């Protein structure tokens, strides 16, 4: 289990940042993602893996309005 924006999400071996975005249907293009406090560059979303128990923050910038 991991925490994504303070909500639990089932974890699986080899889970990537991209998997988290798909699982949460996070489609907004301007995101800032931290895994365990470390910033994940956008080009690494497909390859950066997430350890079990990680705290993931997916910050959506404001846009809209």
């Amino acid at each position, binding site marked *: 289990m991991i925490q994504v924006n303070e909500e639990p999400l089932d974890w699986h071996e080899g889970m990537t940042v991209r998997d988290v975005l798909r699982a949460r249907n996070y489609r*907004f293009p301007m995101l800032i993602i931290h895994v365990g406090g470390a910033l994940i560059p956008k080009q690494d979303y497909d390859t950066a893996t997430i350890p079990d128990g990680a705290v993931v*923050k997916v910050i959506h910038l404001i846009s809209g309005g």
Partner: protein
Amino acid sequence: MSQLVFDPAKVMNIDYTQRTEYLEGLEAIQAAHKVLKEITYTPSLPDKGYTNRTLYVNVDTLEITEKPVTQQMKDVFIGGRGFGLYHLWNAVKPTTRWNDPENEIIISPGPVAGMTQYAGTGKSLVVSLSPQTDIPIDSNVGGFFGPLLKFSGFDALELQGKSDKDIILFIDGVKGIIRIEEAPTDPVDSHVLAEVLTHMYAENEADLPNISVVSTGAAAEHSLIGMLNFSFYDRRRGCVRFKQAGRGGIGTVFRNKRIRALVCRGPVVKGNLNHPADPETIARTGIKYHKEIRENDGTQCMMRRNGTAHIVEIMDAYDLLPVHNFQFGSHPDVHRIDSAYWQQRCTQATVDGCWYGCSMACAKGADGLVLKTGPYQGHMVTVDGPEYENAAGLGSNCGVFDPDALLELNFYCDTYGICTITYGTLTAFIMECYQRGILNKERTGGLEMTWGNFEADLEMMHQMARGEGFGKIAGLGVKKMKEHFIQQGWGDPQLINDIGMENKGLEYSQYMSKESLAQQGGYALTNKGPQHDEAWLIFMDMVNKQLPTFEDKAEALYYFPLFRTWFGLNGFCKLPWNDVVPADNASQPEPQKVPEHVQNYVDLFTATTGIRITKEDLIMQSARVYNFQRVFNIRMGKGLRLHDAAPYRSLGPVTREEYESRAERYDKQIVDEMGLDPVGKTTEEKMALHREWRTGRFSKLMDAVYTRRGWTLDGVPTLDRLKELGLDAFPGVVEVVKQHLS
């Protein structure tokens, strides 16, 4: 996360040069014009962003005078919305209403407006007493009129009085002529009128881009929701297009004064007309920003390709797209009106902009629409947009997912002078009233206002333009419709009040706020009413969980409304602030504020005016105007806590269907937030628990926000706060609030 890829092969084959033209009767229309008053003046260009004079025109007495811009005006009010509020405060009394002669319409572009080196610098602000809210309304608009007005020599235009005949005000900023003309046979609707007037007042083909027309349409004469179109000439298409000052019914005030149009002919726009104090800094900042757009927009919001409609499918994915009068946040048919569709439908041989030098260029146009209904049936037209608000308001919120029907609704809103946001929300309200039996075919005069029935929707709009039938009732807006339906005994008053999405008399714009307490405040705890241009906090609050406490939400509802107010003081568009961000924004402190762009704005203001400011000064500049506007509301008999009340639909689920459609979410909140067990409770019992919880926390939010803003718990700015802002020295301000301070 998905990134829409543009495929040029899918763009519909539309010849955007083909459209119906309306110039055949131009000479006869011009011949019928009669000069009522003409004066000459000395045109001048701005110095450090200011021309240092404003223009006053009384359309009744035909008085035309110049007024000086004082140092106090610059120091306290900056320009734009600030100048509008300053002039309006001096023009009206507490008893003045929208249709009294002393009410004014003020148009002011702000000191930075007209700059061509940075994106989004062609805005002007329009201020008036609103027919919908009875308090000042401010509406932010693109198009060329504001900058051309300034380059003709004026920082603001004040319009007062009521004419007894239809008139046009013409400002020739090249020859130095101001003329009021009687216009007895001019066309009524904007797309015809603006085309005719642009060609009438241009001296030749090359002069067409130097003309801008402000106009409205037939519906502004028969409704309270009239909008103003500000034109700009699209050289590529060879046609006149519009941006809209939509909110609050200023178009209605315009026609009540019998103004048919304002026409400004300015000088040829060049990069140095604003005469900034430090052109090198402006050029450097602009080049840096344009590079950022070029490099980043294609992988961020794709504003250049899709415009604001890019968020239709995003709002749907996050359950934030208003569907069926804000009952639900998504719909399976949204793909029919999302940006993938508009990429094909909008003619985008190049990017569009509504002012020179805007590299974000998000103004879009859908060409080749052949109208199926109304007085222009069979005509081929270009439709501006659709922008997000139009697609959501006229589309999903009313269950309309036919894209051509949506475009036709959008077109007629524009040419009739109807605010698309207001029309979308009031039609959604009518459709829900129809669904729930509050309205029926007899009460609507035969209109079957069922979800998605765009034929009935269009007919209601045509009725509104003709001042007939149920369309005339709809044109009163949601607040007055609610009162009317309740007075007629047509339904449960509480239900009608719960589902009528207005606050202060203004209709909500097109975002779902139920699951974001901060956005509930972002809509209701505003000066003019629920428009998202003060604060859009849904992602920060609901998705990111960055605002966990009332104090956190209050801080966001302090900072962002003030930051965004500043755009309207200066002539900036909001979109370039945060619809693209620097590549290293993620590693900056407080990235949601886009700190590099904030610094750009500080630098641009300083480089334009020569007045050195910091980012903290920027907030202080806004705070003066924002608090002045709050006091103005109180002066007009509003502006207190009770006037910030929100309809329950904006706070939580009103109906059984709403609750049960998201039962898992709502049941979980009963456990997590209320510490109760939903098992064994009926839907009605659970809805009652939610209402108590949600209204209670909204009330606590009000307390926190008012405290952070330096207001009493009744929403009145304290004397200490007014002194801190220097507003206690402004005549009348302290007297207004003292009546409410014990």
